[in-house]
């Protein structure tokens, strides 16, 4: 069988799938573009950085575009996943591992050693890769680049170029096309350009990607951030109000109407990268039951962590004296506990039965949060929270969740764990949205009667590791908190069995044991039991 994973170190692929001459040229162009970045990275002096930067980005983009056109426009429209599991890069072969190592190393340098990318300290001019991006940064916001600007630019290029590839690949499927355009738009506009322009308008304003909602935007309620907003008058106040409203009002409403997909696969930047640049790796997510169990523990632990941390952060800069400001530490901690209790009680009252065993896990989670908050409150001093310095606590969350999990593992491990391992195992936002989706949302994936042939294409291409087939072959609707609604399961199904739908809450969950097509008496018999 040639459905083997090719661990051979040979560069010549022994398999039948090869690339055309045009694709080789495209690869060449793209690699030259990358080479310019590499030269800059190794501090080779490039005379006209503006020209070389343009050349590099254009060549990378052009390489991807030409390659994709040759791959998809030469064939008829339709699902084309031929050879996915034979190619070294998309089946955890040599090239997959190589890419994983390179990406992971890049993230480690980016987050922890930006000086190696050429980031200057104390006002000195940038060099290396960061220096190469100075002209673009100056053009947009009139300041020199930072390592985050470099990252943001490359990230945006990746989403745009691979988004184009995705649109071609799914050009028979309008859902996929529109969704991808949305993701490209939000990345380019909201995540990349608008924050730069906001800086031009008012350079005291903290960086704010408007589409980034707490807890994904975990620093929005940090002291420096809140102070930054408050010192900026009405605009700043409006932004912080928007931050709160988007978290507690807009998000639940949209999730109720459309499921968490409105965010995870239409707006979010992490999701955007996964859907575009990560598309070649989506099949690598594990569908084992054990992976699902791990996922549920991990993601909810991160959520607990982020709720407690954010509360602690806000708590740390609030005063004790009610004469200065009405919001004191006591008021705040009481408000948070009351709020969480109302949510918990509401969920248990309305959905306790439906949650079944999960209700117990939820109760444990709730108990842990409250215990941690009380513990913090009664041990806190002006300096320390949890016996740890406030500042240290803040950076712990930033480093372990914000950097290592979301960046280093989340993206660096695309070729190993699949494209959405961060969204699946670590994103606190996904946990909250998933909670909302599972409990109250009109969204579900409907399965089409008895048409499923259990082929497994759906499960194979689920980037969130959901065993879609397990539901489809039982004729059950799929109502899972992790589903990001990318719609690829529906696209790849050869029998047209799956459909993403927003419909009434009634009949959303429909466990039946006998599928449609069988005799009605039998269905009655089994369903009555």
């Amino acid at each position, binding site marked *: 069988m040639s459905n083997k994973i090719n661990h051979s170190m040979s560069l010549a692929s022994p398999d039948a799938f090869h690339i055309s001459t045009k694709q080789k040229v495209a690869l060449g162009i793209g690699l030259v573009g990358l080479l310019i970045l590499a030269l800059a990275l190794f501090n080779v002096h490039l005379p006209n950085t503006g020209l070389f930067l343009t050349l590099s980005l254009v060549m990378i983009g052009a390489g991807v575009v030409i390659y994709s056109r040759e791959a998809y426009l030469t064939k008829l429209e339709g699902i084309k996943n031929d050879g996915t599991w034979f190619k070294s890069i998309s089946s955890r072969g040599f090239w997959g591992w190589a890419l994983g190592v390179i990406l992971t190393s890049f993230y480690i340098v980016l987050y922890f050693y930006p000086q190696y990318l050429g980031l200057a300290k104390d006002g000195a001019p940038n060099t290396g890769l960061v220096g190469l991006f100075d002209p673009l940064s100056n053009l947009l916001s009139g300041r020199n680049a930072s390592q985050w600007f470099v990252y943001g630019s490359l990230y945006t290029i990746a989403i745009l170029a691979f988004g184009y590839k995705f649109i071609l690949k799914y050009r028979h499927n309008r859902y996929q096309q529109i969704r991808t355009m949305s993701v490209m738009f939000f990345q380019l506009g909201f995540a990349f350009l608008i924050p730069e322009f906001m800086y031009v308008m008012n350079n005291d304003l903290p960086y704010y990607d408007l589409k980034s909602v707490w807890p994904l935007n975990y620093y929005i309620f940090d002291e420096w951030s809140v102070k930054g907003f408050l010192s900026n008058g009405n605009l700043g106040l409006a932004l912080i109000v928007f931050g709160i409203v988007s978290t507690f009002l807009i998000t639940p409403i949209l999730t109720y109407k459309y499921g968490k997909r409105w965010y995870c696969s239409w707006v979010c930047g992490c999701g955007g990268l996964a859907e575009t640049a990560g598309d070649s790796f989506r099949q690598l997510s594990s569908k084992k039951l054990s992976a699902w169990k791990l996922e549920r523990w991990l993601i909810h632990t991160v959520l607990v962590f982020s709720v407690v941390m954010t509360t602690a952060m806000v708590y740390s800069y609030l005063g004790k004296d009610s004469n200065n400001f009405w919001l004191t530490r006591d008021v705040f901690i009481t408000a948070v506990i009351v709020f969480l209790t109302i949510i918990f009680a509401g969920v248990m009252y309305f959905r306790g039965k439906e949650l079944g065993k999960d209700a117990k896990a939820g109760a444990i989670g709730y108990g842990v949060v409250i215990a941690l908050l009380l513990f913090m409150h009664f041990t806190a001093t002006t300096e320390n929270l949890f016996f740890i310095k406030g500042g240290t606590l803040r950076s712990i969350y930033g480093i372990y969740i914000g950097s290592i999990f979301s960046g280093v593992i989340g993206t660096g491990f695309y070729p190993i764990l699949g494209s959405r391992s961060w969204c699946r195992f670590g994103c606190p936002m996904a946990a909250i949205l998933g909670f909302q989706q599972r409990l109250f949302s009109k969204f579900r994936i409907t399965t089409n009667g008895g048409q499923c042939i259990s082929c497994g294409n759906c499960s194979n291409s689920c980037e969130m590791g959901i065993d879609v087939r397990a539901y489809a072959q039982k004729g059950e609707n799929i109502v899972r908190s992790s589903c990001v609604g990318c719609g690829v399961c529906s696209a790849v199904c050869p029998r047209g069995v799956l459909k993403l739908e927003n419909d009434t809450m009634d009949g959303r969950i429909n466990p039946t044991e006998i599928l449609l*097509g069988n*005799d009605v008496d039998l269905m009655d018999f089994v369903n009555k039991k």
Partner: protein
Amino acid sequence: MEHIVIIGNGISGVTLARHVRKLSDKKITIISAETDYFFSRTALMYVYMGHMKFEHTQPYENWFWEKNRIELKKGYVDTIDTDNKTLFFAEGDQMQYDKLVIATGSKPNKFGWPGQDLIGAQGLYSKQDLDNMEVVAPNNKVCKRAVIVGGGLIGIELAEMLNSREIPVTFLVREDSFWNGVLPKGESRMINRHIKNHHIDLRLNTNLKAINSDENGKVKSVIIEETGEELECNFVGLTAGVSPNISFLKDSKIDTKRGVLVNRYLETNIKDVYAIGDCAEQHEGIGNRRPIEAVWYTGRMMGETLAQTICDNPLEYKPGHWFNSAKFLDIEYQTYGWVFGERGQPDYEKHFHWKHDDDTKCITVAYHKDTNAFLGINTFGIRMRHETFDKWLTENRDVDFVINNLKEANFDPEFYKHFEKEILATYNNQLQTV
């Protein structure tokens, strides 16, 4: 404890085992000589195409069987002694049963073509067939051309598979249009064109005369009956249908015709011996259905039904309204109710046909010429909701109602273009001119 032994680990056998386990505590053994674990046969093509690995075609993880106390035995049943309720394996051992279920599925038809057993001439049904295909047709260097004989669903899947590895394919179809025994004219013609658009050399009205061998006993070429033309090739796909895989029963007392004969309770002539799935043959077809139905979901339904009977709730096998689906390269096909093809269309059955300009979407609605009763629908390139058509068929709706409410049945993804208005306009137009 009663011992239920199931021969065959396909969809019928496994569905039966799962449902017996849900309903009872009986000892269950599934026997297969093909693979260790249940896999979805319909997905084999995607393994060759590289969409999935073989493990991905297994709907249950390997621990599932032990956890649910379903014993798996790898072995080939050679003979059955129904008097002593004993199975004898080709490997030499034997096994006792209390109730026996034969669920051995089908095997590809071979019609005695000269050279049909050469290396490189094969059907595509079992895991072993796929393994062999990887040997004889791994790429277009080893396999310079492939010839497929027989114009059915497995044939077109095989063509798609070979196409994915850029192996040139010649497709020999005996009929004058692809699958026109089943499909109405407009649809069959559209699929002909779609096949050719994939650069597959489709030859209609063409029969295989013989397969020639090289000096190593491998396929070298085929001879076409009509023209006498010799086509060089390294692989011949024999996909002229399947028939029940029951040759091991010939010395037993179990009644067989083409398949294992069963009554509506899926019982054979021998007490405590049952047959389900592709290998079971009804004494008479149920409704318009054929006595043998080699379809994935009927196997599943028989498994569901027989599980009730075995667990002391005797139930007749009563399939509901006919439905099915398939995919022809890039075009999805679904059918609900009965739409007869070019050949064998009953004279009471009239068709309304609509085709989109892009030549990849069409529907055919069958109705009764006197009563206008809706009989069935075929859709190509448009997904339809099973539940809705099942309901409409039960409610005996007429064709006007169906065409006017087609939107309700649409199952295409969001943002897809809808064609209900166009279809309705065409329908109204045709009625006026007729």
